[in-house]
């Protein structure tokens, strides 16, 4: 765990703010493009945020946070409570969204606040002299963070899709691309699904598609779990994830993304009805494993094998 101070807060748009995180002691670890860190907020929430900025520069971390209307306490806390000079704990950077070393053309696709990891990617690709394009769908005046900076830095590599003026078209993006082309997308689930569907229809290997959806776990109905080895019973609230309930009870489960994609928090269960909401487990594994960061109980109480 790393202790940081909020060194600066900058309002990028009425709903997006940038936070500069400075190490309290020593230097922050270097990170690769596409990395994220977990913020451990004083209110007990842990959220993952992509590191933007140039990975080669080192120094302070920068993250950008969009205020979510339906915030479960993460983005709302950051926007309303956190002040310059406050201190926080963060985890070390981890990368679940790296650039492919073999690709010879990179297509970066961002919608709104999904721009953050792709900013780091664009720095890295510029330095490598790699062939790339950044496609940015945004709403002018609210979800268009860093637009001016990107226009200056990327020139014709930047392709803009302002809401209401130009629609992002996955089929057009993927048409007639040379071998060696890889796509990196960050945005809402609907965008990622559209891209996947089009890529599939055009005969793209799924290995050419890299995506990151850092949506917070969706709330649901409250449910009960029992821990088989300790015999403890826990109640998971409607607004809480199972992982959060376990952490609140002092049970630490390894985790990285907290969004159902990285696979770190895979936990065995012995019985109970599970609503699987992750993108990691295969159908065959779901009978005995679940991802507590997003999946929930739905019916018979879950007996976890921990």
């Amino acid at each position: 765990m790393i202790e940081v101070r909020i060194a600066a807060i900058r309002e990028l748009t009425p709903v997006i703010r940038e936070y500069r995180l400075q190490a309290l002691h020593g230097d922050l670890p270097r990170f690769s493009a596409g990395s994220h860190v977990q913020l451990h907020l004083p209110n007990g929430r842990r959220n993952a945020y992509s590191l933007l900025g140039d990975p080669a520069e080192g120094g302070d971390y920068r993250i950008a946070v969009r205020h979510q209307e339906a915030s479960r306490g993460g983005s709302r806390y950051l926007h309303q409570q956190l002040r310059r000079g406050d201190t926080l704990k963060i985890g070390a950077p981890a990368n679940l969204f790296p650039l492919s070393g073999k690709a010879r053309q990179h297509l970066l696709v961002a919608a709104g606040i999904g721009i953050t990891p792709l900013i780091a990617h664009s720095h890295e690709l510029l330095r490598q002299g790699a062939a790339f394009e950044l496609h940015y769908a945004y709403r002018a005046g609210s979800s268009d963070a860093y637009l001016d900076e990107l226009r200056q830095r990327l020139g014709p590599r930047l392709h803009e899709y302002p809401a209401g003026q130009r629609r992002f078209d996955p089929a057009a993006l993927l048409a007639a691309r040379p071998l060696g082309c890889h796509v990196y997308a960050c945005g809402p689930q609907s965008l990622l699904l559209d891209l996947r569907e089009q890529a599939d229809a055009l005969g793209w290997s799924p290995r050419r598609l890299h995506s990151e959806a850092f949506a917070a776990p969706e709330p649901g109905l409250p449910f009960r779990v029992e821990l088989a080895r300790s015999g403890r019973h826990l109640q998971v609230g409607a607004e809480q994830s199972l992982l959060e309930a376990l952490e609140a009870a002092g049970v630490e489960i390894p985790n990285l993304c907290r969004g159902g994609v990285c696979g770190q928090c895979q936990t065995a269960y012995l019985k109970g009805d599970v609503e699987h909401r992750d993108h990691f487990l295969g159908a065959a594994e779901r009978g005995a494993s679940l991802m507590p960061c997003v999946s929930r109980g739905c019916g018979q109480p879950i007996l976890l094998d921990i």
Partner: protein
Amino acid sequence: MSATTDHPFSVPRYASPAAGPKAREHLLVTQTGEAVAARDLPLIHLALPDYADLAALHQALAGYLRDARVGLRLELRGDQSFVWPLHALARAAGLEDDEIHLDSSAASTRRVFCVHCANCQPASAADSLTCAHCGVVLEVRRHFSQRLGAYLGVCADAEQPYAEVRP
């Protein structure tokens, strides 16, 4: 011993054409001049006998892949020593692993990489051979390099690397 020992992770499997990603276009490269069944997809067929030598075929494939578009499926048919160098070429050209289908036989001619002189050479499916470059008697290990398209050959007997007859 477990099933994994019978087929180590590093030894390639030559599966039947799986239901991989859908293809938009098909490119078939064969070692022999076999006739090819008609398919629904556009199909390009490069056959070794139509070229002056292997180098010319490699050049033709590289040229074709340079202008190709994502959505292409490549099928390579022939001995292991024929398909793997083409596989490496296709990967370098930007094709993904699951966009290439290998149709070969584990019993066919394969390539062996000698760890003592760092040369590759064609070999049979036999467990040992004498390196054609440095003369060391090699035991062929069940360890395959996709990059080199070759099995690992190491000295079979360190006491008698050249199989000398002892007095």
